[in-house]
Structure formats: C-alpha cells, structure tokens
C-alpha cells in the first residue's frame, strides 16, 4: 500500500478518477459491507432519518430499513453495550458515536466489556464491532466536541484503533474494520469529512496495521496520522521550495501499529518528527517516538522530536483553537529545527 500516494498523484490527471468526499467514502464502505453481509448493521444516535451527524449514513435508512439502521435514544452506554450483546451473539454492529468525546459515557462498555470479553472468556467470544466516532478540532466546536482521544483506546489491549487521513484510506480501512473479528475504534477527523480524494468504485480494502508513505523524501521523516497527514504534506510542499525533502509516513492504524515504514524512512533520513493533533503530553506520539529510537537509534542524527497540542482543553475562540494544535507553520518550523539542530 506504499503506492497509494503515487497512485492518487498519478490518477489526479487520469480520466478514470472519481473524486468523492471523505464521508461519502465511509458511506460506500458501510453500504457495500451491508450488502455483502446481512449480519452488518448500524446503531447510533441520529444515524437514520438525520443520516448521521456528519451524514455518513445518509440514505441508508431508506435502503436498509429500521431493522438495520437503528436510531437509538441519547444513550451512549446502551449503544456500546448493545453492540457487545449483538456481536457476541453473531452480528457485526457498526456503532456510531457523534463525537468521540461522548464515548466517555460509554467507556465502561468499550473498555471493560467489548475489549475484555474475548480475553476474560478464555478466547472463546468473538466481538466484531466497529465503534465509529468523529474526532478532532478546527471547526469551532469547543472543548467537548473536539478532542483527539486515541491514546485512551490504544492503551487498552483488546481494541484496534484506526485513524484514516484520506477518502481512499477511509473506505478501504472501514471495510477492513467491518470484516475484522475484533473491536475496532474507528476515529474520523471531522475536518476531513468534506475533504475530497480519489476513491475507486466498488470493493477494495486497506488492511489494518499497514502504514503508508504519503510522500517520499530524504532529509527528514514526519510520522503522523489522521488530519495531521494533510498538514504534514502541506508542510513538506513548503519545505521542498527550500530544498528540504520530507518523507511523510501515515500510520493509518494506531493499533496494531506498523512502525516498519517509519523506521525504514528514518534509516534513510536520520531525522524524525512525530506529529499529532492530540495533546502532546502522554500522547500516542510518545509510543511512536520510543519505537523509532529503539529500532533506529544508530541512524538518528538528532533526538526524535514530537509535536502535539498544548496542554489545554480545546479553546473555542478561533485564533486560540488553531493556536492550540500543530499547524502547517509549526510543522515547517519543527522540521527546520530538526535539521538545523544537527
């Protein structure tokens, strides 16, 4: 899958390109998997008539009816728990949380039930659940609708965690997640829903646990995921004007994490910057940085740097909100520092 960027870049000019929105790509994944497997169903708040808070499930109620597109009351613990009960008895629920921030209410069901049942029951139970949620800041939703909480979930054995950055990956990864026999937390950055990209029609999957080189370069490596991939690519474009070639690695799946492409990249560039929108302290970037230095220590010409959000809830006011998490400019500066600092 290292060639998705190249494919996308080439197909930008190609006649067969099909540019669709990120949320459309997700909808296609759900639609195709629901057609493919009658055990798949959607449950969540406003997934039916409303079509999902970000319109991911729009039109599916008309197509599949109330028995497979199930609107729930505002009951996040119920959504997560019903997915446990339905999956352990043989169905494949896709449970939607409008905002990952709301998953706090469902955390017992996700962490103590869904993630642990298989293990506690001696490896016998199978819980093929996808917990989808919108995440991330940047659209003025203030502190309770904007968090990047992936580290909550990557820390829990029994969960897989996915965070796509492009419509192509979103569709292919969601299809893999739906087919996976595990509990997958699928985090969709809300600022990406309206982004467009080339997505083939019909069936394809992007496997979980395979990272992707989104841009090749020789001077420094940025390891990131979700919306920050787009920022990193913009930063890389700016830096290229200065003659600095940055390689951008998109992890795509945070657990299981494929660090191999990041390590291979650092062996070439000798410098690594880890970027995520989540609060830097205690963030998932610490795990990435640690694994890079463990596996590529002898190749590093500088300490692995990290760039994450400041230590605050996400503020509402626009300049504060955008000042709180990594921007293209801050990534550019961080790469420059990484190179100059040698």
């Amino acid at each position: 899958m290292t060639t998705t960027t190249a494919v996308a870049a080439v197909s930008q000019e190609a006649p067969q390109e099909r540019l669709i929105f990120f949320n459309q790509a997700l909808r296609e994944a759900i639609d195709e998997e629901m057609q493919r497997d009658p055990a798949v169903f959607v449950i969540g708040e406003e997934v039916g008539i409303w079509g999902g808070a970000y319109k991911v499930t729009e039109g599916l109620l008309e197509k599949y009816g109330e028995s497979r597109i199930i609107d729930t009351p505002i009951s996040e613990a119920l959504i997560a728990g019903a997915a446990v009960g339905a999956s352990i008895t043989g169905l494949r629920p896709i449970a939607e949380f409008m905002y990952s921030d709301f998953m706090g209410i469902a955390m017992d069901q996700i962490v103590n039930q869904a993630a642990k049942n298989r293990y506690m029951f001696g490896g016998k139970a199978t819980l093929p659940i996808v917990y989808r949620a919108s995440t991330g800041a940047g659209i003025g939703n203030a502190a309770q609708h904007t968090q990047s909480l992936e580290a909550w979930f990557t820390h829990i054995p029994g969960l897989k965690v996915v965070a796509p950055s492009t419509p192509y990956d979103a569709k292919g990864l969601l299809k893999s997640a739906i087919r996976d026999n595990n509990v997958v937390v699928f985090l969709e950055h809300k600022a990406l829903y309206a982004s467009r990209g080339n997505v083939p029609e019909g069936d394809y999957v992007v496997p979980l646990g395979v990272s992707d080189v989104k841009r090749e370069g020789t001077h420094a490596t940025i390891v990131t995921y979700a919306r920050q991939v787009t920022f990193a690519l913009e930063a890389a474009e700016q830096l290229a004007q200065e003659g600095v070639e940055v390689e951008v690695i998109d992890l795509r799946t945070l657990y299981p994490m494929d660090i191999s492409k990041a390590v291979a990249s650092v062996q070439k560039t000798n410098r690594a910057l880890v970027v995520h929108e989540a609060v830097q302290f205690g963030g998932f970037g610490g795990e990435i940085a640690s694994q890079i230095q463990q596996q590529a220590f002898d190749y590093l010409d500088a300490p692995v740097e990290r760039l994450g959000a400041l230590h605050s809830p996400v503020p509402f006011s626009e300049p504060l909100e955008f000042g709180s998490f990594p921007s293209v400019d801050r990534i550019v500066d961080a790469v420059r520092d990484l190179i100059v600092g040698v």
Partner: protein
Amino acid sequence: MAENASQSGSQNGAVTLSRDKLLWIYQAMMRIRRFEEAAEEAFRNARMRGALHFYIGEEATATGICAELRTDDYITSTHRGHGHCIAKGGRLSKMMAELYGRATGYCGGKGGSMHIADLDLGILGANGIVGAGIPIAAGAALGAKLRGEDRVTVCFFGDGAGPTGAFHEGVNFAAVQSLPVIFVCENNNYGMATTSDKANAGPSIAGRGVAYGIPGVEVDGNDVFAVNAVAREAIDRARSGKGPTLIEAETYRFKGHTVHDMAPYRAKQELEAWLKRDPIERFKRVVESQNLLTAEDFDRIDEDVVREVEMAIEFAEASPFPPLEAIEQGVYAD
C-alpha cells in the same frame, strides 16, 4: 404500582410442575449451594484466591427463572454469578477450575469467579461491573430480533445496579424497541453495606416498569414456585414478541458481600429471619407436603451433588495452571 406475585404459585397453591422439573429445580439449587460451600472451604484453606461473591440464599431466583429457559436462550450474569451459570447448565468442574485459575476452567483461568461464560449454553458472561449486563442483554435481544429468532435474553442484576445509568439506558431502549428480554433484579437489599432504600428512590424497582410502559412484577425471590410462575409469563411475553418485563425478586444473601466480608453491618436478627426463609428448605416443605417428591429423591440428589462437587474440586486441583505464554494469547481474534 407493580404487580405483586409473591402469593402466586406458592405454598398455598397446589404445585403443578412436572416431577422432572421439580427434580431439576431441587438439583439445581443444591448444585449452587454445595458448589459455593466447597468453593468457600477451598478459599478458607488458601487453596483458592481472588474475590468470591456467594449466591447462597438466592438460589430460588436463578433456578426458578432458568427452569423456563431453553439452552439457546441467553442470560447475562453478575459478579454474584455462580448461581446463574449453574442454573443455566454450567458444568461444575469447568466452573471450579476457573475459580482455581486453572487452564481447564471455562475461561482457561483468564476470567475467574466474576467472568464465567459459556456461549454454547447461552451464558453471555458474568460481569464485574455492576449494571453493565443490562445494555449487553438489550443488545443480545436486539440481535435475536434482527435475526428473526425466538430466543429470549434474561438479564440478571442486583439492587445495586438500580441506580446506574446503564439500567436506565438498557431498560429504556429495550422497551422502546420492544425487545425479547426479561430484566431480573435480584434485590438482596444490599449493595455491599449500602441498603437498597439508600440507593434506590421510589417504593420499588419493579415499580419503574410503569415509567417504561412495561410490566413490573415483584416476587418473593426465595419462593422458587412464585419466581417460576412469574418467569413463565415474562418469558412467554418476550418470546411472543410482546417485549420486556421487569421482575424484582426479593431475596437475601446469607453470606457477606464477598468471601472476605462477615457482614457486620447487618443485624443478627435480620439474618436469622431470612435463614428461616431458606429457599431450599421452603421448596422441600412444599413438595413433601404435597407428596410430589420423597426423602429418597432428595437423598439421591444430595449424594449426586456432593459427588459432583467433590469431583469438580478434584478436577480443578489436578488441573495445571495456564502457561505464561497464555498471557498475551486470546486478546484478539485472528
């Protein structure tokens, strides 16, 4: 508000259950009691560790309910779950081995007393989180409904789960969706040392059924015949697509909250009064007085159960611990 069923199907009325069912009920209640007595002894002799929450004294509730379930019906259980698992058909040897943390236990030693599950028997898992089984049971019932099956799900929980958000979210959704689930609150009046009146507002938990537009039924949880009668009606209702029922069974744990708890917060007289309502003794009195079972029947089952429990202990103690390699196995499915 709630229908009170404590007088129905009980001592005053003639028992109409078949001899086979009566034998099954007695055996199930004795299996629960002797299993837990043996587990307690093993624990006190330091042959077993962890947390044990005994169901002794509450046997009639799980037994009366499960007597009306099919093997393919589901139950969700609680931290005080041995009784539910045994009444649903759980094998004592595999349960005991699990309590001992052995590789041959139901969960390969990964779950212990609070997490016994047997999906083949419809036991979707005991649960260490109070109230958490309620949304899960709603989900299992939702699954059966989506697949067009006539399985029902019984959700056992305690009065301690009454105040949780999970109770409201699960029961409300089940009622909204008219799901085939029976919510069985085993009200033993104590969530650890907190009495139910300090935890649950309102006159009863069953009374909340009115708020959800579903039947709420109070029943004497130590009267297996009364429980059974209520269960039959609720299960029929669920199986025929008429939706959930909320049953509140009034009962009492004869032991403390856990094996470590001597329950100093309970009055001696209170315990003594409840011991007089021992569900097994009450069952025996009824069936003997109506000449339905004989002393020989009881003796034979008693002997069988004692032997079965002894064999379970022997099986558990002879079984190996799981290997250390097992620690990271079974976290994910392939």
